């Protein structure tokens, strides 16, 4: 839970940092859909690659190529997510409904973080 919380914050931070550097008009109306697709496509791409790599040394030797592919796919999907109306609306509905998970996972994750920190870092 603790790792998931921190990892989610890192992923969110990544989306925010990307948004900070991109022109406002690219994201103003479609932040939710493009942000969601960007995060999901990057994470799913990483998962696919991690599934196929079974040796630690693979990660070092193949990671540069892997990152180029991941971000190319993510850029294309993120661009399309803002352009295709039905896709945009579907992503927005999904994201809106997924908010319910925050009400569960955030308090539990924070509690987990406090327990781990209290027991092991004191």
């Amino acid at each position, binding site marked *: 839970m603790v790792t998931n919380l921190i990892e989610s914050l890192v992923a969110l931070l990544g989306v925010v940092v990307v948004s900070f550097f991109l022109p406002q008009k690219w994201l103003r109306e479609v932040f939710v859909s493009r942000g969601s697709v960007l995060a999901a496509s990057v994470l799913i791409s990483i998962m696919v690659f991690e599934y196929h790599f079974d*040796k*630690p*040394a693979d990660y070092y030797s193949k990671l540069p190529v892997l990152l180029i592919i991941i971000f190319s796919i993510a850029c294309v999907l993120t661009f399309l997510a803002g352009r295709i109306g039905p896709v945009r609306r579907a992503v927005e509905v999904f994201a809106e409904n997924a908010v319910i998970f925050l009400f569960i996972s955030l308090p539990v994750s924070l509690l987990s973080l406090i327990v781990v920190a209290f027991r092991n870092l004191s």
Partner: protein
Amino acid sequence: MEHISRRDFLKLAAMVPATLAFSQTILPNPIGLDSPNIIILVFDAMSADNLSIYGYPRKTTPNFEELAQRSNVYHSHYSAGSFTTSGTASLLTGLYPWTHRAIDEGGQVVPAYADKNIFSVIGKSYDRAGFGQNIWAELLLGEFRSNLDIHLPPSAFSVREQLGGDLFQKDSPIGYYAYDDFLFHLGDSPKSVIFGLLDRFLFGYRLRSVPTDGYPSSNRGGENYIYVPHSDNYKIYYNLEDVFRGLLTQLHKLDQPFLTYFHLWSPHAPYTPRQEFIELFKHDGFNPTRKPKHPLSDQLSVETMNYARLLYDAYVANVDSEFGKFLDELTTSGILDKTYLILTSDHGEMFERGIIGHENPLMYDPGLHIPLLISAPGQTIRDDVYSQTNSVDVLPTLLRFAGRAIPDWAEGQLLPGFGGVEDNSRATFTVDAKLCSSFGKLSIASMAMRKNGYKLSYYLGYGNTDWFELYNLQNDPEELTDLFDENDTTSRILKDELLTAFNKNSGPLRG
């Protein structure tokens, strides 16, 4: 005396250290027979069936044979468990798996027995050290850590390691479970997507500089395979020389008397011997007995199994070679003169019937028959014991070495040669129930009972029907002829006894 003068007091004060100094010269050495050191050395997944000391055609263990010249050698010693968790727990607690219930992969002993282990019963007068290079053994040591004076992490003596569990000193078992077993486990894609990527990238980078001199240069493991001893599941890469050297250093640091439990990963898969040991057997023409493929096996080909066997045998020879140096140092340093050295394993390894390894429920000897050598302080002769013994017998025997009483909860008995008697009429068991909950009924399980030279195996919950197999281990050591349907009387008697024991112990835990 009316009063004590200053002079009287000074005389008295001078007498105290003088008396204490004198006592050191006339009292027996505290490291005598009453409190010898004890070293338990466990080689993970070492099958007795592949050791030349037990008659294997390949010369895999010349140094074990050297130790055997001054040891008790147990020829029919079996693990009570079929894989690391259950086998190690039985060795450490003297209890069968259906009692201690560390039965699932990475499991721990149930709370009722958590304080019943070799470290607690031998007591605080011993300096007690534990080292489990296998994480699943480490999880048990972590459970018993309040009974350990020194607890080395699994990553100790490694060339490269990247474990996180030991960062959580007060929650190390949970740390290993959550961090190394769940989030960053090497055997699967990591559960932590972003950190897992970074973790493996960093470890991959660090592995690039691991020295591989002397190891095969072929890409047998595929591109980017680092061919040195390691765990496939956890981020530990090591050299056997470093591990044995580290253990020796640790031994010299301990206060005597000491009890050490050193559980080495090798020769567990992946089999990574040095090239010179592969060359020993590569073209020897050895052709193991062919056995029928079992329905519960992976249906592997004979060629695949024989090649894995070759690497395993070479790895065992490699381990034996490094053990030989370790033994020499123990001898020359004088440690062995006041130490019981116990050499054993937690379970065996199979290269037959369509199977490589031990991750199956089958009860055939290669997976359960393990080495046991015990060298007593000053022992100069070899004593061979052929009657069947079990890993649950180690705890009571070890307590005898230390002059401790054997607790009534111990399920084993003294080993022959150390107070016990050779008794083949006694029933001993091996239990596998890795698919069951520790606290529930053992509804999917396999077990073997040995008695009077026979072995009866029982498979419960695998497939549509349960079944038994009976082998006469004296006439048919390769277990090729199933006698269960042929020998009605023996089958019935053994079946009744096995089922009685199983039904008594396999229910859900209460309280």
